């Protein structure tokens, strides 16, 4: 009996080996054209949900970007908006009215037409409290981007024209509308599925969802009626492999075609592999050390500069980020327009730091606290380790810093209310506009608790420049204003800007047409597989 069981088991195992080869046969491609094929993308986590209005995590946004489209969208590889479901638009002279002309003949994948009503529905459900779908919230990103303070109303002028009326001039609006929360959803499907719309997404994008095995994979299939061109893949599979090294092993074995965020330890092996391409891009984020300028001694500019001289960023990058970070000198990342590359960063110079401290009246240094987040964030993979390195470096110039940490929610609460002396934190950009960093993190209005500006730095000149840029339509003028603002930031240094993370994606050599997004998104719109 036992033997028979054993034999059966052995036979089954043997049989399963025969089919093991199936794991490697990679694409069901017919010809040598670009058309067809299945792309498997392995990433660390599953989507939380697929309703673009309610989600706020990147993993949900990856499939969302393929299923839905907005009025405008980021031009691939940039943070610049370009037409998508809106073919064109006009902005009124006072900057308060945007009129969008919709692309005609576009259908949702449930067969209903994309028109002005659908656009109005997609926006109103997120802010009109009497809207039938409002209760399906919270509409997180609508809130994060303060859209309720910007948008007054969204009106259908006719079937194919939509007018958006604003409460105030807001130059970054088009960037906001290029984000996932502002895509257009099928009102029919949203009403039909209600709270379960997040499991049954319907949009106009080049792909539609055919299955979602929770925690494992989402399968998207080409939308045969898509209006746009150059969509080649039959299917895209978003596969979850939580461990970074396991992802790399799966790629090596050919089970998947692209992997997200390989482990820094594996980068050398990946570079050395002749069958694999490694693509990198600077993340749209910044990790920083904020000094609480509302407290002594950080109200003194000389002390803040001294600390900037005392911190050795090269050591921190090496010890904390490894291959996946670059030193920061400005509060915005270098891939963003308006980045001021003429700024000369504070060099590592402990002697100079001690000199400045003496000049500020602290020849023997002082004691303070250094707060470190308890969690891993994209902009800071290990805050506690970073704090320890900084602690050592500060000690060398006479500053004794005690490391403090709280549970994440408490940490955010306390820093927002200014209980810290110095605190590590960071920011990931959402809409690719410098306003999204400089205004949110460093302006005067942001320094009122609960504050985004946790340095509590109040500089009228800086705030005025950012405000002017917010209300100016011309991009070149805005860029100049932001560059000036960065000069003030550098001189006054309410932060030590520490680093921008680097994003990596590794793929088989036959995957073509992938463009890295500076917004930390993954998009396979025009990808194809070469034989």
């Amino acid at each position, binding site marked *: 009996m036992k033997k028979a069981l054993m034999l059966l088991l052995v036979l*089954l*195992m043997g*049989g*399963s*080996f*025969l*089919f*093991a080869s*199936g*794991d490697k*046969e*990679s694409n069901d491609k017919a010809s040598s054209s670009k058309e067809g094929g299945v792309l*498997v993308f392995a990433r660390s986590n*599953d989507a*939380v*949900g697929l309703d673009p209005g*309610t989600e*706020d995590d990147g993993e949900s946004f990856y499939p969302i970007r393929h299923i839905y489209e907005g009025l405008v969208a980021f031009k691939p590889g940039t943070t610049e908006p370009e037409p998508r479901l809106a073919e064109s638009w006009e902005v009124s002279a006072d900057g308060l009215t945007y009129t969008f002309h919709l692309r005609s003949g576009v259908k949702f994948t449930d067969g209903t037409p994309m028109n002005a009503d659908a656009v109005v529905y997609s926006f109103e459900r997120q802010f009109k409290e009497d809207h039938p779908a409002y209760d399906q919230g*919270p509409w*997180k990103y609508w*809130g*994060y981007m*303060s859209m309720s303070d910007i948008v007054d109303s969204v009106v259908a002028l006719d079937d194919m024209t939509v007018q958006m009326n604003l409460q105030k001039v807001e130059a970054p609006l088009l960037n906001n509308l290029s984000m996932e929360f502002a895509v257009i959803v099928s009102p029919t499907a949203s009403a039909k599925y209600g*709270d379960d719309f*997040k*499991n049954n997404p319907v949009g106009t994008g080049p792909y539609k969802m*055919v*299955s979602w*095995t*929770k*925690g*494992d*994979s989402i*399968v998207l299939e080409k939308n045969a009626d898509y209006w746009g061109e150059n969509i080649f893949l039959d*299917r895209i*599979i978003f*596969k*979850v*492999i*939580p*461990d970074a*090294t*396991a992802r790399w*092993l*799966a790629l090596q*074995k050919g*089970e*998947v075609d692209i992997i997200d965020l390989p482990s820094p330890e594996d980068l050398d092996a990946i570079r050395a592999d002749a069958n694999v391409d490694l693509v990198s891009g600077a993340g749209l984020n910044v990790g920083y050390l904020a000094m609480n300028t509302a407290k002594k001694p950080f109200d003194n500019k000389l002390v803040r500069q001294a600390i900037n001289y005392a911190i050795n960023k090269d050591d921190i990058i090496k010890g904390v980020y490894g291959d996946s970070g670059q030193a920061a000198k400005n509060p915005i990342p270098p891939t963003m327009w308006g980045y001021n590359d003429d700024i000369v960063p504070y060099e590592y110079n402990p002697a100079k730091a001690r000199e400045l401290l003496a000049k500020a009246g602290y020849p023997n240094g002082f004691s303070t606290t250094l707060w470190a987040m308890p969690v891993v964030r994209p902009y800071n993979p290990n805050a506690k380790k970073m704090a320890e390195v900084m602690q050592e470096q500060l000690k060398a110039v006479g500053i004794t810093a005690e490391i403090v940490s709280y*549970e*994440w*929610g*408490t940490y*955010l*609460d306390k820093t927002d209310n200014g209980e810290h002396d110095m605190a590590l*934190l*960071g*920011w990931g950009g*959402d809409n690719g506009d410098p306003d999204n960093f400089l205004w949110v993190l460093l302006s005067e209005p942001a320094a009122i608790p*609960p504050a*985004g500006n946790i340095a509590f730095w109040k500089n009228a000149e800086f705030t005025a420049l950012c405000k002017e840029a917010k209300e100016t339509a011309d991009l070149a003028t805005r860029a100049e204003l932001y560059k000036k603002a960065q000069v003030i930031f550098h001189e006054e240094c309410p932060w030590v800007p520490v680093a921008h993370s680097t994003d990596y994606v590794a793929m088989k050599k036959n995957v073509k047409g992938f463009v890295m997004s500076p917004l930390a998104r993954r998009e396979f719109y025009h990808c194809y597989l070469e034989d």
Partner: protein
Amino acid sequence: MFRFILKRLALLFPTVFGVVTLVFFMIALTPGDPARVMLGERASEKQLTELRQQLGLDKPLAQQYGLYLKRIVKLDFGRSIRSGQKVADDIRTYFPATIELTIFAMIIASLLGIWIGVLSATHKNTWIDVGSMMGALVGVSMPIFWLALVMIMIFSVGLDLFPTGSRMNVRFFFQPHTNFYLIDTFPYLFKGHPEYFLSALHHLVLPSVCLATIPLAIIARTTRSSLLEVLKQDYIKTVRSAGVKERRVIFRYALRNALLPVITVIGLQFGYLLSGAVLTETIFAWPGIGKWLYTAIQARDYPAVQGGIIVISTSFILINLLVDLLYSLINPKIRLS
């Protein structure tokens, strides 16, 4: 016997109620505001207030507890704060993956563990004994994530024998129903798609072997010491002096009694594994309850954590009950007392 079972079943209710209550207060007293954790760096005060209201966090604790009990009695675990998905649906999705993996791992661990234990007890102080007990020591102390990665590197990437992870070849587009893949794919064996079932089985091997290492080592040690103990007893001497073959002495007379503590250990290990092997699940991309619960705890996702812990601990309690019943089958003395 019947009364014994009834008594044990009756005890089930207060135990589960204790778990339910403990879970609520443990979570309620944990520092950290779930609304804050959920919305992160970007949250506005208005958003936070709205969310707290929506989650009922603005109500007094006693009232929250009352509402919670009312829901649980109706077996309604609510919706996850983080994802808005029904917690019951999530558990139905993720728990079967863990159960399937655990059953496989425990079959491997029990069969091999008992066999190794018997072998080293009967060859006490020989190289077989020393070798297998050293192996057991290594098995208990090996870090699982490391073992898992090494196994993938050797057996999957190096020797090309097994897939690196997941429950099935992702290119098959197979849609499970019960989420027990072996059950879901079984009918396809006869519908011209045997590859589904075979792929599911093939994918089970590495993770279950990996997960089996620790219980295997523990079972082997327990079997060895328990069997050695029994072999010293007088009735064994009697049986031996009656000229019964050694093989029969071991398997017919000694092992049966020696298995009592082993069954307890197997039951306990089974229960532990059911609570989800976060590391094994993570490295083998196995979408089980452990990883799911871990994420929920990190996100302060109250309803998900509550639902998950209640279901897991209830199954733990049920397994213990099962072990007790098995005991009484094997050893009549327990039935009588």
